[in-house]
């Protein structure tokens, strides 16, 4: 009998090693998730919070109210379009720059890596206020340089969404760039050199040679980006002042937060949370399938 077999036979060891993690995750993660589901089935507002009235079970009532509300569908549509736009642009920029990184000198590479690192490191809150300052209608640099006078970038729905999207991309392309660059570096140099010798352009090399090899890695980066961009909160909340003029820049996350904490409809807010969770869980299943395909042993 080997030593490791002896260790493995001590059955209780993994349990106490996992105990601290479970002691945090069960009460602070699993239980609140269960509570979220429960809350979504109740009418839970200000009278219930203060204890004046008992919580009233309404079954799928919150969901029905939500699905009957045209605002919900608008917000859902906006969330999907906004997240999809952010994902596509983030991946395009990240992938293009990852390829560019392989084709430049060490100095330029160091400069670009450092610049990306600063954008990555900047907290969402910092990024939001700095960009808001740059695009401020009165004192912003952009309006001064472009001579736009007092143009308000946050007045028009699509302009505001595009600007917030730019901040999201600015924050998240470095992750894609650095991860894909690490992946490309793992592709044998001979393959890349052969492509370069044949005079293949950066785009062709990426599409025809690197992308197929990196396919599993790309799938993971894609789904990770979908999950992040679907959950954007700070940038929208801060830059558009809690969701824009008359709530025209709401996404599901901010909408749920508003319903719950601003209008005390905690049950309805929880129902929105459940809808988000279901959508992201579907994405998770795709993610798991992608991982399976890379041969990751669970």
């Amino acid at each position, binding site marked *: 009998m080997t030593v490791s077999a002896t260790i493995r036979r001590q059955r209780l060891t993994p349990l106490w090693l996992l105990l601290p993690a479970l002691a945090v995750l069960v009460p602070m993660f699993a239980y609140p*998730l269960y509570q979220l589901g429960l809350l979504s089935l109740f009418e839970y507002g200000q009278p219930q919070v203060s204890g004046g009235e008992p919580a009233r079970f309404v079954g799928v009532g919150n969901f029905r109210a939500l699905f009957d509300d045209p605002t919900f569908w608008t917000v859902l549509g906006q969330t999907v379009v906004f997240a999809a736009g952010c994902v596509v642009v983030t991946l395009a920029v990240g992938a293009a720059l990852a390829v560019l990184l392989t084709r430049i000198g060490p100095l330029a590479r160091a400069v670009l890596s450092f610049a990306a690192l600063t954008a990555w490191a900047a907290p969402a809150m910092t990024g939001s206020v700095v960009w808001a300052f740059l695009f401020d209608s009165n004192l912003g640099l952009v309006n001064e340089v472009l001579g736009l006078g007092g143009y308000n970038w946050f007045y028009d729905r699509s302009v505001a969404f595009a600007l917030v999207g730019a901040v999201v991309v600015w924050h998240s392309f470095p992750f894609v760039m650095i991860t894909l660059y690490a992946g490309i570096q793992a592709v044998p140099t001979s393959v890349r050199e052969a492509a370069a010798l044949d005079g293949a352009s950066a785009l062709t090399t990426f599409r025809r040679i690197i992308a197929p090899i990196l396919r599993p890695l790309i799938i993971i980066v894609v789904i990770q980006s979908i999950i992040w961009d679907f959950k954007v909160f700070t940038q929208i909340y801060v830059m558009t002042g809690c969701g824009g003029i008359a709530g025209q820049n709401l996404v599901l996350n901010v909408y749920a937060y508003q319903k719950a904490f601003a209008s005390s409809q905690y049950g309805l807010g929880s129902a929105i949370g459940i809808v988000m969770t279901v959508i992201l869980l579907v994405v998770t299943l795709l993610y798991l399938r992608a991982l399976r395909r890379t041969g990751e042993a669970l």
Partner: protein
Amino acid sequence: MTRRRIADAAAIAVAVVTVFPIYWMVLSALKPTGEIRSADPRPWTLHPTLEHFSSALGVSGFGRYFLNSAVVALTVVALSALISFLAAVALTRYRFRTRTTLLVLFLVAQMVPVEALSIPLFFQIRDLGRTVPGVGLNTLGSLVLVQLAFSLPFAIWMLRGFVAAVPQEIEEAATLDGAGRFTILWRILFPLVAPGLAATGVFSFITAWNDFLFARTFIISTTENQTLPAALLVFFKPDENDWGGIMAASTLMTIPVLVFFVFVRHRLVSGLGGAVKD
């Protein structure tokens, strides 16, 4: 050769655009108020001043918020490293029936929109505060608990690869030399996965340091327990913004993460490689 030149120039142009908002933030923090309010903003300043920093730290109390953020983030990093290390060892070195289930659950947990959990957690933290002091609403403890829970699934998932990369023979040899399980865990395995701990530490630090939503939800009446991101919003008013002060506070908020990033940069990249395992 020219092609390389063009590529280099393009990369540097992208770098300039990327870093510009950060440059503008630091510059505006150093500009005197008159220059910020000027209708002709210049990309440099001839009269750098620390007035915005001193007013942010002094009058606006950002020193206190900075300290709060640091306490929360560093506590989360330390606890998360410790707890995720133990869990990662359990999940890589032992075979037990619920192992696969747990791994899948940790992965799925990363996908849950934690923002939606702010609703039930608000009530839970409020009720918890009534029985356990130090973790209720308006406490830093509540933020530590929540951020710890949100950083653990990713930290465990990421560290697993680092623990698995340590050859089991090392532990077996140590056992033969008479080392106990505790010694193997802390004296041998823990130092060997240090690079992994650095990488997961960055992610835990960023999650905790950047948190705006939970700080805003939990710290409602005791403003001296506010953390930086939520405190910044208080000074961010749509009509009359003190941009110099906001930029100084933003700079203070960015520096620690940037320093952290630069120090663990290489470990971070190798950590990402280990996590995605191409």
